[in-house]
């Protein structure tokens, strides 16, 4: 019997699910598993006990809070899909603001009808077995995790900074150009698409293991304002360890 897989999305842009559909091996994935719940990808969905559930997006409403708990109860493995699930994502920038003011700014007179919670990363709400990071994820990471699960292996973490993806391509260094870049402390494996396109790394995949944060901040302070540094680390993985402190102003 094929493993039963579900992909759920919470508050997000669905970009990570699009990346899954973009995978050049999607036919192999479809051949190997049964998607019993995948709202974006198929018309007919049902609840069942899942072998693996991927959860994309941030938990912002009490409905979503209940939903993720239900998914956990129904799943052998839960994998956080993308930086919204892993680290709160863009939506979690509001964690650093006055929530009521932010609501008024976005929804105007309808603000009262909107429910928005303080955004916690998924692993702080339910047990998460693995995280596929990124905003959005890269299809290769999804393929790697699925391959590893099929082969009965524990998925392997990336242990390299974004700088390694970047410099191995021969890109000019953003930091040497005087541009604030999170590359040295950022979890790599993405292929460094941002610096390859001439813009700095925003650390969307969160921090690398053993990041040299002190040295990085010393360097950034020489080339960027405190506000710019805070914005850099608050952007895509605001609730990630270390980034959370920097984003909160601890420089």
């Amino acid at each position: 019997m094929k493993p039963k897989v579900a992909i759920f999305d919470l508050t997000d842009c669905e970009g990570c699910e699009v990346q899954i559909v973009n995978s050049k091996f999607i036919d192999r994935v479809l051949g190997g598993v049964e998607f019993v719940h995948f709202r974006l990808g198929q018309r007919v969905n049902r609840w069942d006990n899942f072998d693996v559930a991927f959860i994309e997006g941030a938990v912002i409403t009490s409905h979503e809070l209940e939903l993720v708990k239900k998914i956990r109860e129904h799943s052998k493995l839960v994998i956080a899909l993308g930086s919204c699930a892993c680290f709160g994502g863009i939506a979690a920038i509001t964690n650093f603001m006055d929530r009521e003011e932010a609501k008024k700014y976005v929804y105007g007179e309808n603000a009262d009808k909107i429910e928005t919670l303080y955004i916690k990363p998924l692993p702080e709400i339910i047990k998460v077995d693995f995280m596929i990071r990124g905003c959005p994820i890269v299809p290769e990471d999804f393929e790697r995790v699925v391959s590893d699960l099929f082969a009965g292996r524990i998925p392997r973490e990336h242990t390299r900074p974004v700088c390694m993806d970047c410099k191995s391509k021969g890109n000019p260094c953003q930091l040497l150009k005087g541009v604030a870049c999170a590359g040295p402390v950022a979890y790599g494996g993405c292929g460094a698409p941002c610096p390859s396109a001439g813009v700095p790394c925003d650390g969307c995949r969160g921090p690398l293991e053993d990041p040299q944060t002190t040295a990085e901040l010393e360097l950034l302070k020489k080339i960027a304002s405190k506000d710019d540094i805070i914005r850099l680390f608050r952007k895509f993985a605001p609730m990630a360890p270390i980034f959370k402190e920097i984003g909160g102003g601890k420089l």
Partner: protein
Amino acid sequence: MGKKIKKENLKKLFDDISKEYRVIAPVKRKDDYVLMEVKDFSEVALDYPTTVLPPKKFIMPYKEPIFALDGGEFKEIIPEEKIAFFGLHMCDVNAIGRLDLVFWNDPYYKARREKMLVVGISCKPIETCFCKSTGANVLTNACDLFLKADGDSYVGFSMTEKGRKLLSQLYFGPETVDVKEVKIDYDEKLHLDVYAIGKKILEDYNNPVWEETAKKCLACTNCTLVCPLCYCFDVIDETFVVPNEGQRVRCWDSCLLLSFARVAGGHNFRKDLKARYRNVYTHKFKTFVDEFGVPSCVGCGRCITFCPADIDMRETLSKLGGA
């Protein structure tokens, strides 16, 4: 003995080489120079300070499949491409020579290297150069043909049979030049006795310089990636979703990463960045010298040029030497 070649005839030499090889040469980008595949001689930068990545980018690529698993069958992947480097500086040429010491019996390396042609060219040493200190400023037979600038022309020196073949072509000579030794000579900003310093690394293992420099270091790995002699690699098995298809790849690694010296069971021999940073130097200037007689550094200066944290290997070495 060298033979003269006029600058305008370099195109003929290039075209000759292009017929047989995939030519890799320095090319100007917006603000820097890179080694890349070149089809037309006009793209080649003959005069350049240094390239971002060294020749190892093509000799042992960042991620190289070494065997494939295809429908349950294993297939070794031995590279078949014929590469010619056109216009490498003396440091990079000698870096290839020092890589040969390590990898000559490696089937993947050897397959590329045996079919390879290396054409070197004169350089104008820049502020970060210290090839004299590492003994990499002298022409060796890692180079097939070396083009030494001489006014408006070049003098070609052949070091191998492949080089001699090219040198016998009509675009060289008839003028000959007698030179005993071809080398790059200049005043280094800081001359270092790297052999003496290398010996001191183990004797003075807890020198404060490691702690001081590790504090500045981002562990971004840029220095090891741009180093023409940092060859450490990781081996990764990739499966492509289905269990009977995949490949084993060899991928550049860096000893500056926490994962580098972590072994099965989780023990890590170099937990602190200080120990990892020191390891770069221990390997380059002590253990490599013990094993092969030369340092695994050619003084190309890339690690200095491309360090975002402004760390200068020469300063670290000279502090260690007690200068």
